[in-house]
């Protein structure tokens, strides 16, 4: 196993995206184990590499761009108020509702799943507590957002006046769910994220509750394969979560 001293020669190249093959795999695996030394050094390397942006010849964007951007933001706010949902999302929501109608036999099976899920949730909570004590959670979220190859999933609300929720998926770094002004569910309820596969039933990606000002920053531990996902959905569930959605999802977004 490689140690920090051997890996330090790769920090800058990795921040630059030039590292490849075994060297890259080794450093990534080491970082994934949460080495504080290398994590901090990688942050420094990323800062250094970002400074290379000043090598670009200076250019001026058109005045139109600023107007377009501010219009888009104003328009987004209007959209948040209007709360719009496309036809395909309704189809997805209806499919989910159908899936929540269980036979008695299935209900018994679900009991076992529920116990397993509660155990998972407990483990995830403990893991989250450990993460929250550090800046790691934010750093991971920012890393996912800014990484190469990250794809965005816009989860549209099915009801006024909920705002949109955005998820960002990176094959190597994982998934982050981000939102503003998200309402807080009742004390005994929580939001639950679902990965809806192209075939089969939704798979839980864990539960979350917004912060005091409705901010959501959720990094689920993914059991589901995002490569097979058709959509992400969020429904309101009991505080411990459900094995399958028991309410119509409030947000749905296609994974393209």
């Amino acid at each position, binding site marked *: 196993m490689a140690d920090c001293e051997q890996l330090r020669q790769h920090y800058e190249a990795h921040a630059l995206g*030039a590292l490849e093959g075994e060297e890259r795999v080794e450093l990534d695996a080491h970082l994934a184990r949460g080495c504080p030394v290398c994590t901090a050094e990688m942050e420094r390397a990323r800062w250094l*590499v970002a400074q290379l942006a000043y090598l*670009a010849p200076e250019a001026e*964007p058109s005045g139109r761009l600023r107007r377009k951007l501010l219009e888009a933001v104003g328009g987004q706010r209007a959209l948040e108020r209007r709360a719009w949902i496309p036809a395909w999302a309704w189809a997805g929501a209806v499919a989910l509702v159908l899936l929540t109608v269980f036979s008695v036999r299935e209900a018994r099976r679900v009991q076992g799943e529920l116990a397993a899920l509660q155990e998972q949730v407990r483990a995830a909570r403990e893991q989250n507590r450990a993460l929250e004590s550090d800046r790691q959670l934010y750093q991971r979220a920012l890393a996912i*957002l800014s990484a190469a190859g990250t794809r965005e999933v816009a989860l549209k609300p099915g009801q006024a006046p909920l705002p949109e929720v955005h998820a960002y998926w990176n094959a190597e770094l994982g998934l982050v769910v*981000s939102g*503003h002004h998200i309402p807080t569910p009742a004390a005994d309820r929580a939001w639950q994220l679902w990965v809806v596969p192209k075939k089969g039933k939704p798979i839980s990606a864990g539960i979350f509750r917004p912060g005091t000002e409705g901010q959501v920053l959720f990094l689920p531990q993914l059991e589901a394969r995002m490569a097979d996902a058709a959509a992400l959905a969020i429904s309101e569930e009991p505080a411990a979560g459900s094995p399958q959605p028991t309410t119509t999802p409030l947000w749905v977004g296609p994974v393209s």
Partner: protein
Amino acid sequence: MDQLVRRVPEALGVLYDRHARAVYSLVLRIAQQAASAEEIVQDVFLQVWRNAHLYQPSRGPVEPWLFTLARNRALDQMRLKREKQRRREETLESQPLACAAPNPELLVDRQRRAERVRSLIGSLPVPQRKAIELAFFEGMTHSEIAKALQEPLGTVKSWIRTGLLRLREALEEA
């Protein structure tokens, strides 16, 4: 940033005025076309708008992060384009006839930092500078650069590393 978190559109205007030139310059250098560069820049600032709650000033300055986001989005776009182009060419052929900020950021202001980056990288031997530029602006890996420059892989690796370490020294001088 605080106003941005509260979703005051004017706050985005302020952020834009401060950083748009530098972000646009970077994206244009990668994308080469003004129209696609503007689209990418708009997308970058929209992402910031949507995720403003992730930033806390105590977690470091926003600019390096904006650069990282902008660079990766622009390189993603270019890869997508190349992929499309490649596929188009293949179909044609198949037819007959056819970011933690270190202290220097606090010490050295942006203008001086930009000057130091340009002068340090500019002072490197041409092939070494070229290697760093191919990695940063074209998103090439070590072996791709070695091939493009027809230089040994080990040489390319050490050029990039020593070049960046010298840059760090230059930026950390008070």
